[in-house]
């Protein structure tokens, strides 16, 4: 296991910059998740670490070893592909044994290592089968066993759960987290699913347009997003965004004029806003309540539900305020009717304020 460090890594394809100046350190034994929307560069970054594509600029270090110019097979990294990339003509045994065979290890050693890896992923009884005979989850485990058997310094996983059905995905999520604990390995995991990122990661790296937007622990990203992009990307359903303008500033208090709601007063913001400045106020759907609850001052918002989703444990209301989607998540089964206006309440302390550039306005 080892520390992974990226220093000013960039990757361009002709005039297109896929990755721009990424600097990042992933600690020994850490489970880091790269997350971001399609095309944000997360898989490209993983391929650069793996050595499958050369970087245009910067340096990659694994442990004390500068691997920037080293070919893929010599970096001591193992990768689990989205497609699993199992060799379909080989048995499960041969698939797992392949990296060891390439190292020209002895047959006895290979057998011992393969059996150990297969046992770790609970596939000892399927060693003679071809991948086509296995279920999606079992194929995934073969791919993981093939990675484990090499004892790499870094594990790379490129959306490994995206081809599985929802139930299996949850099961494999738990298994991968467990495996990470057992192996104590440094893992870099790519996903576009923020739920996977939140549940599995020690630290999340949010990417957008080839740049790192924020790096942090899942709850730091949830509670303290550095900008509108991270705030909107982390959390499901996404944060409600309301356009507004600074109306007045009085000592600790900022008053905002918000279209469709009226005046919202928030205290404790760093005083760097100007009167008349455009802002966006962000409210997480789960911080809205159907009744006044929480500390004063409470914000009251009127919303007309367009549709209501009852999940039993939660009631999700989809509405709109001044043409912008507005979602509320209430605990339990709430008696809400589509088309009938209701008042929802929010603690002002839970409102995020973003300036015109989309940067979070910090609180004191």
């Amino acid at each position, binding site marked *: 296991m080892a520390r992974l460090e990226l220093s000013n890594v960039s990757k361009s394809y002709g005039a297109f910059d896929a990755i721009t100046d990424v600097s990042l350190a992933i600690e020994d034994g850490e489970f880091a998740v790269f997350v971001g929307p399609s095309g944000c560069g997360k898989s490209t970054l993983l391929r650069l670490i793996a050595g499958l594509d050369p970087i245009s600029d910067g340096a990659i270090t694994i442990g004390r070893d500068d691997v920037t110019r080293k*070919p893929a097979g010599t970096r001591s990294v193992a990768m689990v592909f989205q497609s699993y*990339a199992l060799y379909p003509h080989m048995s499960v045994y041969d698939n797992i044994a392949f990296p060891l065979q390439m*190292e020209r290890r002895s047959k006895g050693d290979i057998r011992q290592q393969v059996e150990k890896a297969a046992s770790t992923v609970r596939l000892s009884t399927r060693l003679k089968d071809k991948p086509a005979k296995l279920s999606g989850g079992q194929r995934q485990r073969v791919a993981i066993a093939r990675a484990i058997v090499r004892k790499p310094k870094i594990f790379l996983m490129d959306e490994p759960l995206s081809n599985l059905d929802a139930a299996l995905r949850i099961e494999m999520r738990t298994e991968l987290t467990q495996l990470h604990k057992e192996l104590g390995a440094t893992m870099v995991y790519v996903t576009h699913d923020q739920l996977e990122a939140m549940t599995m990661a020690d630290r999340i790296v949010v990417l957008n347009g080839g740049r790192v937007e924020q790096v942090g622990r899942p709850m730091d990203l949830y509670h303290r997003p550095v900008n509108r992009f991270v705030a909107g990307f982390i959390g499901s359903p996404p944060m409600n965004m309301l356009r507004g303008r600074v109306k007045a500033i009085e000592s600790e208090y900022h008053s905002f004029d918000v279209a469709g709601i009226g005046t919202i007063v928030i205290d404790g913001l760093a005083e760097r806003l100007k009167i008349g400045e455009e802002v966006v106020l962000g409210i997480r759907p789960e911080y809205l309540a159907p009744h006044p609850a929480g500390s004063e001052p409470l914000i009251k918002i009127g919303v007309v539900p367009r549709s209501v989703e009852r999940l039993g444990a939660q009631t999700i209301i989809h509405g709109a305020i001044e043409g912008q989607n507005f979602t509320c998540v209430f605990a339990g089964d709430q008696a809400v009717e589509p088309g009938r206006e209701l008042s929802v309440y929010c603690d002002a302390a839970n409102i995020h304020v973003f300036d015109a550039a989309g940067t979070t306005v910090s609180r004191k």
Partner: protein
Amino acid sequence: MALRNSTSGPVKTVSFHQNWSAYAFLAPALVILFLSLLLPAAATLLMSFTDVSFLKPTNFVGFDNYVKLFNDTRFQQAVGNTIHYTIGVTFPTMVLGLLAAVALNQKVPGRMAFRTIFYLPVLTSLIAAAVVWAYVYEPYAGPLNGLLTRVGLPPQPWLQNPGLAMNALIIMAIWRDFGTAMIIYLAGLQDIPNDLYEAARLDGAKGKDIFLRITVPMLSSVTFYLLIILIVQTFQVFGAIYVMTQGGPLGSTETVVYQMYQTAFGYTEFGYGAAMSTVLFLTILVFSIIGTRIMRRKDA
């Protein structure tokens, strides 16, 4: 007449009446198939049990033609020549086709031009190509012997020497056929997911290992397909021999189909020729069945 419906649950039968439109759409194809394939095949089989000829009345002779065929040393030589030709053409064609496909599957400059050049012989008329190659092999004015003389080697009577003629035909066939093998292998190569190569690279595999452990096995279905079509095709060689050697010298290039043609149309022994044709047909059928079985087992 009834068809079994293979859906799950109780077995249903679908009457001809209910399916008449399906049969109506199939009818033109079935008529063409019957007239062009089944009828001639049945006629050939029937003929093989007769001594039909333009020169005398036709008699039913039972298995006489087949008994004669298996005791005919000229036919045995033709079978030997055909096997020599088939092996000589099939394997080098496949190896060269594979190597060319692998080379031209890389991002090398001019690869489209090379693909076209290698495939051009397939598109040329066989007769025209055979005439050109007959000139190439010409012992006195041919460019091949001209080249040999220029590098200090003795000229060879390529198509006149019984020891060389078949090999000369084989070289021409490889030149003509390897473009087909290359195109089929190229299609097969492009079907191999890139992820497999990337996984192999990460697993520490290098060029030779990747080729032997990933590329070649992943192409096994294509290889079997090519093997079968090349065997079937080379078993039926006729045109090049007709133009270049007429089965000579001393019968060294006389193959089964050429002998069949000579027997039927040269010596007007249609019944005997039909027996040869039937044996050839059955041999090719056996290869096709073996090939199909192997392919099916691999796919399972």
